[in-house]
């Protein structure tokens, strides 16, 4: 088998290995079979066409035909017999369209859908053809890395958080195999291998030079792994992920781009936000809507509230329950609203944000189900990514008086049993007992607990909790009194449960920023709050988190759970005049209305740390870019400085002697000695500086320098080669004569206008040079780069020589010699 055919087979194998990342995409292995068949067919076509010595274009054509025929076999439309017909291509188009729909409908890993399988086979077939052509025809196997990388980028794009590393390793092995095979083939065609000691070795025998190659490869891999760790990124690389351990809800998608919000209301933790990402756009008919809601956590452990998977009926079967007719929530008053919700690319979770008491939904794609208990819209397969749906919902209205009328649930009520179980904690129990002393109704108990979380009681918002060793998480929160929404929501729910009232934690988004008549919701609007079950009213929301920390908080909009902090301000909350004065510092609860400015203010207050981080990241990136640009400009700068110095030299003092005509000196008998005075030394230095500058300018403009040429010949050649006009030509000749006289004559030329001559020559060269050369001369002057390269080469040579001397000395050093000498 000739090298080329063998390379083709290796290319096919590498493509197959390169398809490994697709394992992360598909649920089953059907795709592998089809891809294998496609690649084998293409490789077969390649070998056949090469055996028949077809030209390159015919080889490519053969492979394309093989691909189309294979696809026809695997995905028949039913109208053809092995050979593709027009109907087949229509079928293909249909499959591609179907694949487009499937990518929207399914979350990874996807099931075997014809469309997706077709696209996988087609894509890998194209990659196989490209790699085969690059490797066997164009002999550029290194470029084959690009299509392989393209395959790998699919799971990278789909999974935002992390991608399994094994498929990458497999694909990388395929790539390396390809490179090795190509090199072996090259060596084989060269005929023999160089071993360094003149010995002839077989192709597969390891060469002494291979050790160096292995070392280089290892160094490269280590650098490739370590470098990204050190590079700061915006959305979080490995380092950012390691340093950000805060769960997501409460103020944002903490882990930076998971696309999902963790439904766990932790009682301790830390919240890190890096960038702001737009998640949703909501347009509703309701004025001042309450929070969007998507999830519930009701399983209480000592760490916090956890989520249990929702269950319910699919949307297309059965209608949504009407809260007005349900006994549990029939006593509240309801108002019907309509909202359009548009989800961005960044939010990919299988729980759709809706306003509570959903009664109607349109246009949501994929299969979704509704849990009437948790009041959650969820899906097992689809995600909210790029969904655009509209909902009808009922907004309940309560008053404290109405809620006070709600009777307590009997102890054996299943709801009460389920939602009041708490871990034992004596501290919480005494606290609750203290708070609800004398309160008779459930609502009053809950209000007492709710009011407890106030600024008056020294509760404050913070992005991280403090932990006291030995104390349980909730006790530590209740004592330290700082935390973010998760802690407030979870602690209040816990305490309500202790008081015998069913409670749970709800997750959702605050109102966001008003943008015209719609609201834009970002990851900073993610929030958690408490829901308390009051018989006859259903789950009533209480938001205990201080408003200072929550962008777009709607706390206090409600009569039944007013902003406790606002009530504590000394001025009456009804006093409009006094409110702004105290608002910004003491009572930011005024930021109730969703105004963009206030929200911006709020978010700045909310996450001073993250804002700082962002600033720092921005500054760092700016600094790195500025440094890079500055580094790039160093050669140009060095050139300019050098030129300025030489010009300063050539401008020099005014001519002392009368201008000597360079063409008229003659063998004057008068001057026989070599002139050595300050002026002549200066004139010589000037001429040399001008000449050096001219030579560097020539190098800059890509005019060759011939070391055998005299200044005169160089000047003449420059005029001829660069097609200089008469003025620059005169200037060049003047420079040449000046240098010539400075080098060889008794009397150097004095008083010549070398600086202006240099300017003229430079202008002339720039005029006749191409745009590219001109730019290069200014930005990356070759003279400077050349000088540096030479300096580096010389320095390394010196180092090598020193090392050799040292080694020789070490080798020669023999302690016995000392003995002999001393004897």
């Amino acid at each position, binding site marked *: 088998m000739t090298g080329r055919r063998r390379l083709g087979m290796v290319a096919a194998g590498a493509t197959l290995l390169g398809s490994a990342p697709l394992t992360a995409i598909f649920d089953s292995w059907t795709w592998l079979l089809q891809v294998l068949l496609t690649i084998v067919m293409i490789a077969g076509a390649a070998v056949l066409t090469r055996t028949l010595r077809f030209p390159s274009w015919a080889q490519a054509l053969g492979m394309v035909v093989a691909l189309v025929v294979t696809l026809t076999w695997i995905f028949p439309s039913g109208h053809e017999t092995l050979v593709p017909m027009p109907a087949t291509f229509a079928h293909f188009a249909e499959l591609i369209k179907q694949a487009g729909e499937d990518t929207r409908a399914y979350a990874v890993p996807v099931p075997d859908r014809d469309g997706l399988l077709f696209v996988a086979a087609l894509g890998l077939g194209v990659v196989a053809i490209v790699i085969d052509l690059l490797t066997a025809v164009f002999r550029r196997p290194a470029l084959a890395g690009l299509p392989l990388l393209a395959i790998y980028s699919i799971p990278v794009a789909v999974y935002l958080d992390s991608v399994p590393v094994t498929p990458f390793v497999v694909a990388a092995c395929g790539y390396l195999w390809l490179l090795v095979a190509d090199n072996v083939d090259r060596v084989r065609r060269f005929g023999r291998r160089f071993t360094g000691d003149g010995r002839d070795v077989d192709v597969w025998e390891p060469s002494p030079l291979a050790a160096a190659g292995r070392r280089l490869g290892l160094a490269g891999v280590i650098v490739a792994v370590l470098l990204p760790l050190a590079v700061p990124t915006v959305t979080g690389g490995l380092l950012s992920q390691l340093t950000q351990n805060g769960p997501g809800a409460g103020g944002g998608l903490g882990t930076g781009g998971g696309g999902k919000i963790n439904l766990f209301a932790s009682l301790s933790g830390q919240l890190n936000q890096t960038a702001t990402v737009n998640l949703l756009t909501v347009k509703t008919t309701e004025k001042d809507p309450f929070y969007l809601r998507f999830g519930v956590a009701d399983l209480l452990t000592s760490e916090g509230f956890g989520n249990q998977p929702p269950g319910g009926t699919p949307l297309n079967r059965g209608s949504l329950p009407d809260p007005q007719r349900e006994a549990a929530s029939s006593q509240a008053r309801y108002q019907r609203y309509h909202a359009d919700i548009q989800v961005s690319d960044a939010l990919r979770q299988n729980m759709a944000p809706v306003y509570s008491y959903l009664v109607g939904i349109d246009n949501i794609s994929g299969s979704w189900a509704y849990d009437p208990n948790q009041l959650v819209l969820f899906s097992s397969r689809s995600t909210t990514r790029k969904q655009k749906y509209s909902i009808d919902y009922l907004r309940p209205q309560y008053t404290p008086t109405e809620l006070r009328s709600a009777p307590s649930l009997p102890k054996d009520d299943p709801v009460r049993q389920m939602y009041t179980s708490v871990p034992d904690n004596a501290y919480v129990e005494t606290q609750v007992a203290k708070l609800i002393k004398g309160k008779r109704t459930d609502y009053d108990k809950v209000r007492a607990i709710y009011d407890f979380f106030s600024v008056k009681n020294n509760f404050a918002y913070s992005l991280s909790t403090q932990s006291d060793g030995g104390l349980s998480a909730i006790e530590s929160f209740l004592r330290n009194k700082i935390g973010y929404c998760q802690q407030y929501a979870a602690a209040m729910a816990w305490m309500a449960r202790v008081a015998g009232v069913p409670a749970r934690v709800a997750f959702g988004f605050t109102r966001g920023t008003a943008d015209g008549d719609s609201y834009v919701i970002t990851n900073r609007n993610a929030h958690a709050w408490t829901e308390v079950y009051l018989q006859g009213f259903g789950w009533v929301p209480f938001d205990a988190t201080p408003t200072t920390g929550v962008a777009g908080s709607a706390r206090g909009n409600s009569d039944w759970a007013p902003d406790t902090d606002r009530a504590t301000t000394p001025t009456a909350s009804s006093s409009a005049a006094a409110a702004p004065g105290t608002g910004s510092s003491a009572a930011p609860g005024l930021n109730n209305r969703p105004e963009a400015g206030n929200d911006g203010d709020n978010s700045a207050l909310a996450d001073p740390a993250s804002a700082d981080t962002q600033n720092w990241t921005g500054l760092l990136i700016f600094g790195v870019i500025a440094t890079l640009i500055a580094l790039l400009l160093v050669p140009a700068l060095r050139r300019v400085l050098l030129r300025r110095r030489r010009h300063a030299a050539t401008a020099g003092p005014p001519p002392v002697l009368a201008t000597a005509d360079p063409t008229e000196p*003659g063998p004057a*008998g008068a001057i026989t000695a070599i002139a050595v005075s300050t002026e002549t030394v200066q004139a010589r230095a000037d001429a040399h500086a001008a000449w050096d500058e001219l030579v560097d300018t020539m*190098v800059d403009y890509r005019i060759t320098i*011939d070391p055998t040429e*005299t200044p005169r010949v160089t000047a003449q050649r420059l005029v001829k080669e660069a097609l200089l006009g008469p003025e620059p030509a005169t200037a060049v000749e003047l420079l040449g004569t000046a240098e010539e006289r*400075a*080098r*060889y004559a*008794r009397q150097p030329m004095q008083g010549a206008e070398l600086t202006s001559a240099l300017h003229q020559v430079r202008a002339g060269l720039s005029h006749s040079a191409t745009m590219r050369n001109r730019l290069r001369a200014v930005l990356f002057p070759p003279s400077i780069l050349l000088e540096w390269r030479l300096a580096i080469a010389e320095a390394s040579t010196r180092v090598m020589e020193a090392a050799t001397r040292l080694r020789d000395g070490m080798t020669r050093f023999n302690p016995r010699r000392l003995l002999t000498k001393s004897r």
Partner: protein
Amino acid sequence: MTTPTWGEPTGPLPSAEFRAATQAIMANIEQVIEGKSATVRLAVAVLLAEGHLLIEDVPGVGKTKLAKALARSIDCSVRRIQFTPDLLPSDVTGVSVYNQETRDFEFKPGAVFANLVVGDEINRASPKTQSALLECMEERQVTVDGTTYELQAPFMVVATQNPIEMEGTYPLPEAQRDRFTARIAMGYPDPRAELAMLSGQSDHDPLNDLRAVADAAMVRRLIETARAVHAADAVQQYAIALVTATRESPEIRLGASPRSTLQLMRTAKAVAALEGRDYVLPDDLQALAVPVFAHRIIPTADAQLARRTTDTIVSEIVHRLPLPVANRNPYDAPRDGRAPYESRGR
């Protein structure tokens, strides 16, 4: 060597006079030899460098005419020797004959006793006769029968030879060749010059109209002026480098002699003076390398088999050898520490 007569003005000439005198000589010669100003200039340069000139070319291109024109332009003693196979050394140097009247041997000076000796077809004489020139060319003296006779200054041998004709010729021995400062080829005139020659020389020989424009004393002063031309250290180093390169070239069996180094520098000074400079340029050396070196060196057998002429070998050396500039001029101010550009490669 130079033996000025008493009362004659000596010392270098001012540049204007030098220029006028040399221009006059060259213009005079160019009346006869048309369109060959470079060759004429080289011939005059060899005269000013106190050297000897070998004119080598095919018959009929004006070798002898150039020699004669040079001789006629200078008002000094001129002798001509037609080298024939039967020419004897005594015909060249002179002979002692018995004088009946004085009853003593009396020295009859030969043809070399002149300021300018024109040796025509020098390679037709036997080596024995050719060798008679060795002493006088280098040492400017003749020794006959134990008596040494000084030759006058200036003394210049202008010889011609025909490279094509091999029958009945004796190639010049190496020693003899090395004594010639430069070998020049006339080359065919260009069509215009040839046309002018047809119209001007059809009825009479312009050589007959030629008048002397300088005398021996003037030539001596010109020579002195040319000697005063400055050769910087860098130029001298370059000359040494060139000579060394011919000795080290793998294509050359016999390189250029130290005498040739001296002659190269002298001729370069003369050329520089003729061009109105008081300093020698490497350009002068480059231009003179082929005329000065090519006839002395002996290529190796391999190079001869490869039909490499000495001219091409020397000119390749010139084009290969970098200019020494590490120390451009010892009187320079210290440089700014940058490597000289010549070491940068292309």
